[in-house]
C-alpha cells in the first residue's frame, strides 16, 4: 500500500509540476506519464514487472497503430489540394535533410565508434541509424497550435508549420517501414522468404485491406455505436496484423487513417472517435515507455548529445536551406525551423515500436535518444514556435512566383 501511495504522490507531484510549467512557461509535455511509468516500472516500485509489461505489449502496440491512424487522418485531400504546393516542397526538403543528416551521422557513429557491445557492421548499423533519423525527423504539431492560440493567429506561417509537422511524420513513418522491411527477420515457414519490396507491399496491403473492411463492414450505417465498432475493429485488426508479420503498425495505420478521412461519409464522427481513444492510449504508451526505459548514462551520453545537436542542425539548417532554395526566405524568415524542434508522441511510438520489433540492435540507445529528446525539447518547443510566429508579419505573403495559379472560372 505504501508503494501505491508513493506512486500516486509521485504522479500527482509530476502532474502539478507539469501543469504549472504548462501555464507559466508554455511547456507541452506528457512528462508526468513518463515519470509515472518510471515509478511503476522495474526500476521504480516494481509494481509493473517485466512479465506484466510483456502482457501490456498488445495495448501499447495498439497505441502505436492508433497513432498511425490519427496521422493518416490529417491528410484530408480537399484541404491538401487547397494548400500551396510550395509549403509541401519546403516541408519535404526540411524532412529529408534532417533524416539524411541525422541518419547518416548515426550510421557513421554506430559503424565506427564502440558503443555498448562495440561498433556494428556497416550493414547492421544502417537499421538503428535509419530509425534514429526517422525519430529526429518527427516534429510536434502542439507547438504550432499553442503559438497560433496564444497569438490569435491563423496565417500562412502557422499553416506551414502544420504542413511541415505532417510531412515530417509521413517521412518518418515511411522510413521506419522501409528499414523494418529491409531488415526483416526470416519467417521460415514459407516456400521462399519475401523480399524487402514484398514486405513493404504486404504492410501497405494490410492497411488498405483494413480500410476496405471498414467500408464493407459499415455500409451506409450512421449509428455512432456501429461506427465505433467498425473503427476500433479495423484499427485493432490492422495493428495486430502488422505486428504479427513483424512490420511497424505505423504505416498500415497511416494508410487506414488516410482511407477513413477521405472516403468515410462520417468523417467528423470518426475523427472524434479517434481523438477520444487516442488520448488514453497515448498516455498508456507513455507510461509503458517510462516503465520500459533502461537509461545507461555512461554508454549513451555522448551519442545522445550528438543526436540532439545534429537534430537541431538538421531542423534549423534544413528549414533555412529549403526556404532559401525555394525563394521564400523573406516570407518565413531564416529560422522558421526552430518552431519544428519540439517532438511529440510519434518519436516515442517509433522508438517503442523498434524496441518491440528488434530489441537486439541498439534498441536501448534508440529508446533513450527518443525519450530524452522528447523530454528536453518539449520544455521549450511551444515558446520557440510562438517566438517564430510572432517574429513574422501577421499577413505572411508568398512571393508572386510561389503563389498557386488562379483556377479559371
Amino acid at each position, binding site marked *: 500500500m505504501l508503494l501505491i501511495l508513493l506512486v500516486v504522490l509521485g504522479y500527482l507531484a509530476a502532474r502539478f509540476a507539469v501543469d504549472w510549467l504548462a501555464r507559466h512557461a508554455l511547456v507541452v509535455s506528457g512528462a508526468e506519464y513518463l515519470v509515472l511509468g518510471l515509478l511503476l516500472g522495474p526500476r521504480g516500485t516494481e509494481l509493473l514487472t517485466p512479465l506484466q509489461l510483456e*502482457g501490456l505489449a*498488445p495495448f501499447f*502496440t*495498439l497505441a502505436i497503430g492508433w497513432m498511425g491512424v490519427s496521422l493518416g487522418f490529417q491528410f484530408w485531400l480537399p484541404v491538401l489540394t487547397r494548400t500551396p504546393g510550395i509549403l509541401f516542397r519546403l516541408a519535404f526538403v526540411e524532412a529529408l535533410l534532417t533524416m539524411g543528416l541525422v541518419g547518416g551521422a548515426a550510421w557513421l557513429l554506430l559503424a565506427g565508434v564502440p558503443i555498448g557491445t562495440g561498433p556494428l557492421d556497416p550493414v547492421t548499423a544502417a537499421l538503428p541509424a535509419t530509425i534514429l533519423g526517422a525519430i529526429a525527423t518527427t516534429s510536434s504539431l502542439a507547438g504550432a497550435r499553442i503559438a497560433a492560440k496564444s497569438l490569435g493567429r491563423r496565417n500562412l506561417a502557422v499553416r506551414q508549420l502544420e504542413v511541415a509537422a505532417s510531412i515530417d511524420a509521413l517521412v518518418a513513418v515511411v522510413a521506419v517501414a522501409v528499414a523494418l522491411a529491409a531488415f526483416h*527477420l526470416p*519467417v*521460415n*515457414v*514459407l516456400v521462399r522468404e*519475401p523480399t524487402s519490396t514484398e514486405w513493404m507491399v*504486404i504492410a501497405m496491403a*494490410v492497411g488498405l*485491406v483494413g480500410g476496405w*473492411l471498414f467500408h*464493407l*463492414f459499415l*455500409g451506409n*450505417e450512421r*449509428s*455512432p*455505436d*456501429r*461506427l*465505433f*465498432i*467498425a473503427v*476500433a*475493429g*479495423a*484499427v*485493432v*485488426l*490492422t*495493428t*495486430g*496484423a502488422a*505486428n*504479427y*508479420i*513483424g512490420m511497424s503498425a505505423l504505416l498500415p495505420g497511416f494508410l487506414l487513417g488516410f482511407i477513413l478521412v477521405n472516403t468515410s461519409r462520417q468523417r467528423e464522427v470518426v475523427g*472524434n*472517435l479517434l481523438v*477520444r*481513444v487516442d*488520448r*488514453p492510449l497515448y498516455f498508456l504508451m507513455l507510461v509503458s515507455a517510462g516503465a520500459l526505459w533502461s537509461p545507461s548514462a555512461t554508454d549513451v551520453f555522448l551519442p545522445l548529445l550528438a543526436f540532439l545537436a545534429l537534430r537541431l542542425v538538421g531542423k534549423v539548417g534544413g528549414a533555412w536551406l529549403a526556404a532559401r532554395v525555394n525563394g521564400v526566405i523573406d516570407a518565413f524568415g531564416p529560422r522558421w525551423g526552430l518552431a519544428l524542434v519540439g517532438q511529440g508522441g510519434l518519436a516515442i511510438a517509433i522508438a517503442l515500436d523498434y524496441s518491440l520489433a528488434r530489441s537486439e540492435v541498439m534498441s536501448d540507445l534508440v529508446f533513450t535518444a527518443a525519450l530524452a529528446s522528447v523530454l528536453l525539447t518539449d520544455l521549450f518547443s511551444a515558446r520557440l514556435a510562438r517566438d517564430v510566429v510572432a517574429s513574422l508579419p501577421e499577413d505572411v505573403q508568398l512571393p508572386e512566383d510561389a503563389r498557386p495559379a488562379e483556377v479559371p472560372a
Partner: protein
Amino acid sequence: MRRIIVLALLFGAMRLIEPLGRTGGSPDALLTFGFLILAAYAAGELSARAGQPKIIGYLIAGVLAGPTVLGSVTASAALRLSPVSGLAIALIAFLAGAELDLEEVKSRGKALLRLTVVELAVGVVALFGMALALRQWIPFLADTDLQRQILFALLFALIAVMHSPAIVMAILTETRAKGPAARATLAVVLLSEVVVVLLFSLLLGAAQRLLPGTGEPSGGVLLVIWEIAGSVPIGAALGLAVAFALRVVHEDRFVFALLAAMLGQQVAHLLHVEVLLTLLVAGFVAVNLARGDDGDKLRHSMEQAAGPVFVVFFALAGVAIDVPAAVSLGIVVVPMVLVRLLALRFGVQLGARGMDLEPAQRAALWQGLAAQAGVAIGLVGIVAEAYPEAAVSMRALLLAFIAVNGTLGPILFRRGLERAGELTTRSGDTGELPALATGETPAADGQAG
C-alpha cells in the same frame, strides 16, 4: 448478405496472414482480438436480423472461431486475451451496479430478496435431486462414496443454479427494456450472485473440515466469508471515491469508468475480495451517491459504450466453449437444463406471490434467470483447489451446461420481454433509440468511445 461476405473475408484473411507470422505459429493476441471484434459484431448483426439477441451471434462467432471448430482463435491466443475478458466482466459488474436504483431497492428490497431465496432454493433442490438421480452417468459422482456424492451434488447444484448478470445486462442494454420485469430480473440476478457465492463459500468451508479432499484447504470459513463480506465496504469505498471524482471529471466518462473498473479489479485482487461483488457495490454507490446528475451521466456514458464490451466478452466466452465435449455430455445436460427451467418457472411463481407483477412479467422474469455465463466457472476453480478429484469432470459438465443455458437464455429472455411488452427495440433495429436511464438519444452525449 454483406455480413456473410464480411465474415467469410475475415476468416479468409486470417488464413492468408497466418503463414506470414514471425513464429509461424498462432496469430498473436492483438490480431485475434481485432478479428474477434469484427467477426462477432457481424455475426451479432446477422442474429439481430434473424430476430434473436445479438449476443447469440457474438457467442456463435466465438464458438466457430474457437479452437474446437475452425481454429482461427487458438487456445493460447484466447488465454492471452483473458485479461481483456476479465476487464470486460469487471466493467459489466460496475454497470450492473450502476443500474440499480436506491429508491427501488428501499421500496422492494424485501420482496426481491424473498423471491431470490425462494427461486434459488427450488433450483438447488431440483438440480441436487437430478444430479443424484443421474449419478451413474456423471463421472464425479459415479465412483465415490455416498457422503461425497451428496457433497459434490450439492456443490454442483449451487453452481448450476447461478444466473448471468452479464447476459441480463447485455439484453437490457440491447433492447433498452426498462419495465417491472426487466428491473426485477436485474435485481434478482444481482442478489442471487451474492446469496449463491455466500452459501457456496460456507458450504465449501464446512465441507473441507468434514470431508477433506486431496487438494489444499482453501483457507477456512473466515477467509471465504471475508471474500464476500469484505467486498461490500471495499466496493463502497471505491464507489464513494468515484462519486467524489465525478465532480471534476466532465468528459470522457466512459474512459474514467474503465479506469475505475481496472482499479477496482486490482484492489479486489490485492485484498482478496470478490471482484464482481466489489464492482457491483462500487457502481451502485457511485451512481446513487454522486452529486446532481453526475451519476446519471456516468451510467449513460457506460450504456452507450457497453456494446463493444459485450462483443468482446461474449465472443471470448464463445471461444471457451468446447463443442465436442458439450455434445458428448448431452445425455446428462439436456434433462438437467429442462429441470432447471421448470424449477425456475415454479420458483418464480412461488417467490413472486404478493409482488405486483402480471403473468407475462413473471414469465419474462424466470426466462431472464435462465441464462448462464462464465462466472460459475470461477467457482469450479475454487472447488478444484479443495477437491481436484472431482473438479475436472465437474468443470466439463458445467461448461456444457452453461453453453446450452448461455445460448438458450438470451433467446428466452428477449422473447419474454417482448411478450411482457417491455421491449423498446424491434428485431433488427439499428439502435438509434432512447437510452436506458435518461431517455436521451445515443448521439446526445457523444461518449461512444
